[in-house]
């Protein structure tokens, strides 16, 4: 028995590496006097790198591991990779942020790693109890992250808000899980799924709805999104990058697994729920973004709207059609990180400007940075030849193939609406003149080379996947078939 568990553990080397890196990072932060804070960051980044390597070397397995609690199938591995990419991008951008902001809390690095361990096990979870436990493991550090600058009023508010609403939604989710157990007497997805299909339909639907509320909250689907704009606006930008990408990827994975295995008998019902959620999320996110003046808040609504497109793909049920979802999750992680990254691009006298002023005339001060941001924006709108277009294309194709033509049409309409606010940034960069800095607190304006490189890499990736989407699509399809 022990040896079996031991060999099962071999499928989770990436998580073990991350956990070890988190501990190491904590020790570096606590005990290295000079430069310990940044050192903690380097250790965390190295940990992610090693975990990524371990992930590549981990063969997918279709077996139920740890007595059916976890699986390390190719589906899980795909999402683990997405989480690692999100974590790496946010930590790299965090370095830049803390260079300027000076006050660098070293805790963020290992808290982020702990949260990632939670997410990576959550995407593997095939059991009600494990699902809940892993969910809390990734949620609790993220509450702390949101409020890490506790002396700043907005950040403290963000942390508290996220914490209260988050625990509430976890409780609701737990109730749903308990109902599933009550109806079936099973905790494993594989056994509970068929039992649930034969159970009392109404009770099962209630259980499913409650379970979904918890997930929808974490993914910031409308109408469970209220926390997101405030938290994203209040929290430090690199942490927003983390909070708006990695948890969403993990939640989508849990959702897909639950829909396919646990609630496989209720396809029509969850498809309907997700159609409604998709419509509400896209329209609300995009229309609210139109009215924002702060770039950061606008991007917060944009990330809500982007999740709405994902919901279209989720609603278009069925095996290989979810390839679109997997594809778009990765694309979303890259483009959303880059989008928030543009806030860190221009340092205006020792602080980051969250209005659009810093970006005006950027194309003449830094053409490469402006071109990269342009590609990211085109991808967010969904204009070819970018990955954002291909992702949306796959999502809408899946919907049309399932007869959800109007849902696809709504998605397309929303893409067009989103042009209007995304291109405020494009307009500012290319069509407007630089606004000279007022007598600010200190220092001149500068464009960060490091952020520029990150953005350029993201832009290049988005272009490459836009021209040759098969590079990622084939992996996404394989991940679904391996399930």
């Amino acid at each position, binding site marked *: 028995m022990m040896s079996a568990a031991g060999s099962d553990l071999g499928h989770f080397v990436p998580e073990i590496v991350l956990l070890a890196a988190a501990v190491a990072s904590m020790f570096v932060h606590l005990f290295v006097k000079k430069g310990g804070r940044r050192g903690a960051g380097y250790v965390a980044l190295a940990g992610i790198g090693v975990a990524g390597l371990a992930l590549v070397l981990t063969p997918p397995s279709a077996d139920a591991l740890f007595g059916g609690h976890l699986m390390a199938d190719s589906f899980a591995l795909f999402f683990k990779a997405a989480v690692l990419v999100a974590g790496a991008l946010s930590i790299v951008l965090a370095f830049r942020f803390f260079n300027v902001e000076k006050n660098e809390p070293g805790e963020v690095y290992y808290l982020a790693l702990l949260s990632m361990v939670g997410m990576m096990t959550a995407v593997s979870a095939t059991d009600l109890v494990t699902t809940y436990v892993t969910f809390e493991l990734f949620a609790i550090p993220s509450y702390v992250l949101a409020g890490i600058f506790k002396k700043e009023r907005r950040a403290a508010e963000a942390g508290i808000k996220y914490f209260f609403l988050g625990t509430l939604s976890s409780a609701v989710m737990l109730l749903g899980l308990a109902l599933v157990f009550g109806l079936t007497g099973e905790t494993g997805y594989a056994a509970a799924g068929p039992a649930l299909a034969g159970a009392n339909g109404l009770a099962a639907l209630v259980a499913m709805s409650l379970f979904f509320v918890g997930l929808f909250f974490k993914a910031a689907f409308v109408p469970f999104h209220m926390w997101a704009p405030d938290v994203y606006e209040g929290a430090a930008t690199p942490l927003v990058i983390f909070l708006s990408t990695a948890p969403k990827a993990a939640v989508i994975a849990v959702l897909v697994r639950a829909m396919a295995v646990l609630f496989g008998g209720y396809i029509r019902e969850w498809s309907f729920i997700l159609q409604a959620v998709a419509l509400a999320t896209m329209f609300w996110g995009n229309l609210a973004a139109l009215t924002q003046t702060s770039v950061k808040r606008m991007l917060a609504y944009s990330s809500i709207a982007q999740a709405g497109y994902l919901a279209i793909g989720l609603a278009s049920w069925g095996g290989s059609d979810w*390839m679109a979802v997997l594809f778009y999750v990765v694309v979303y992680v890259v483009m959303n990180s880059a989008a928030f990254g543009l806030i860190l691009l221009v340092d205006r006298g020792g602080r980051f400007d969250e209005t659009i002023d810093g970006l005006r005339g950027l*194309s*003449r001060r830094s053409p490469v940075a402006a071109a990269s941001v342009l590609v990211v924006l*085109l991808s967010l*709108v969904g*204009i*070819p*030849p970018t990955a954002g*277009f*291909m992702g949306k*294309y*796959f999502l*809408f*194709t899946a919907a*049309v*193939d399932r007869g959800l*033509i109007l849902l*696809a*049409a709504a998605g*397309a*309409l929303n*893409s*067009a609406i989103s*042009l*209007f606010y995304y*291109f405020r940034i494009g*307009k500012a960069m*290319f*069509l407007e003149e630089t606004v000279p800095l007022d007598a600010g607190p200190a220092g001149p304006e500068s464009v960060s080379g490091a952020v520029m490189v990150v953005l350029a890499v993201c832009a290049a990736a988005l272009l490459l996947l836009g021209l040759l*989407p*098969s590079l990622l*699509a*084939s992996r996404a*399809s394989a991940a679904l078939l391996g399930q």
Partner: protein
Amino acid sequence: MNIFGMPILTFVTFFPVAGMLVVLFLPGSRGKAIKIAANIFTGLEFAATLLILSRFDAASGDMQLVERLPWIKAIGAQYLLGVDGISLLLVLLTSLLTFVATLSSWQAVRGRLKEYYVFLLLLETGMVGVFLALDLLLFYVFWEIVLVPMYFLIGIWGGERRLYAAIKFFLYTLFGSVAMLVGILVLRSQHQTFDWTAMVAAGSVLPGVLQGWVFLAFFLGFAIKVPMFPFHTWLPDAHVEAPTAGSVILAGVLLKMGAYGFLRFSLPLLPEAARRYAPAMAVLALAAIVYGALVSLMQKDMKKLIAYSSVSHMGFIMLGLFALTPMAAKGAVLQMVNHGISTGALFLIVGVIYERRHTRLIAEFGGLSSRMPVYAAVFLVMTMSSIGLPGLNGFIGEFMILMGTFSVSWLWTAIAATGIVLGAGYMLWLYQRVMFGKLTNPANESLQDLTVREFATFLPLLILAFWIGIFPKPFLTVIDKPVEKIIRIVNPAHYEAPR
């Protein structure tokens, strides 16, 4: 046929991108080198498109020089290019007008040269790709690629209200194209392919009601681009604010993309819906003809006048397409080329005078013919070409459209003919007010006539205007078979009816 190891259609599609990369890596301070490079690349591109002729079989109505590669296996999209007579003429028009537009920008564009030529070259790839792509997804990709550079051309180098005009153009056309995207998705789910040739071969597999919806979706995409009444409101803004080269390409090529879309996709792929909606389309086309002409009569700004005249002329083309007779459709295709030549030239003509005087108000001018005789002659030829004077290109196209439409409805023909009369009115009146009379405004005393470079930009357009006007046969031969093929699909009744 290969150029540098690349199949010719791929080469002509992506050669401008190569030029773009070269310009991108030239230092921004070397303005002259950038200009020379851009002109060489657009010139070579025109030469390369002419090379297609050497392998083109004008007697065939099928797609030729087809290139086919797998692209996205998961959804069956292919990299599929091909050319028939219709595409051929439009590709030649595109490469010629882009070359002319580039040449005309030598003096006119001053700031941010590098970006300007980068966007211009990227635009050319998008346009050529639109006319060559036979895979609907690939077509959509090229269709959208066109938007971004045009947005910047208007927004950066445009006139005073350029920001407004640029975003209006972008938003309007994007709304249309996402509707078209949904239509493409539905077509794909019904046909299980994006391949245009396969779709045509399979015939109409869509049920009638669904055809109607897809037709509507395509209609939004194409009609906004054409632009058809009542979706034309972006056009005057975009044209007036765009720099001269932008206007030339906008009127000369971009509007044709909409008409081309109707002809290539809506008609043969959705024949039932096309027949059902043809009368409605014709009514919209007639509205555009008359409305555009009437509004042109009232304009004080030369550029705006020509912009509204485009609305009227594009109405003619749409009428020709939706008469669903081979004669009218051939006239419409020829008229696409003619409109590109004459309106492109007219925008250049306005550009010449705007560069000298920085105003386009008609009232500022008068009696210019005494100071600028060569200019006056060029202007006269193009005015006559736009009106449709026999012996010049416009006449042939309009005449064929009217003749082809007459067999369907004499009323449509009569209304369209009033558009010609009104057209003669506003164009001649414009010419009279600008060119004739006494030279009263002292600012016009020292105006310089056309320079050699400027005349060179007009020369190919002048030659084509006379060539098509006097000997249109080669042009008509090329489009004959492909157009017949499409009309045979969409309106087989025409061929069965006793003559």
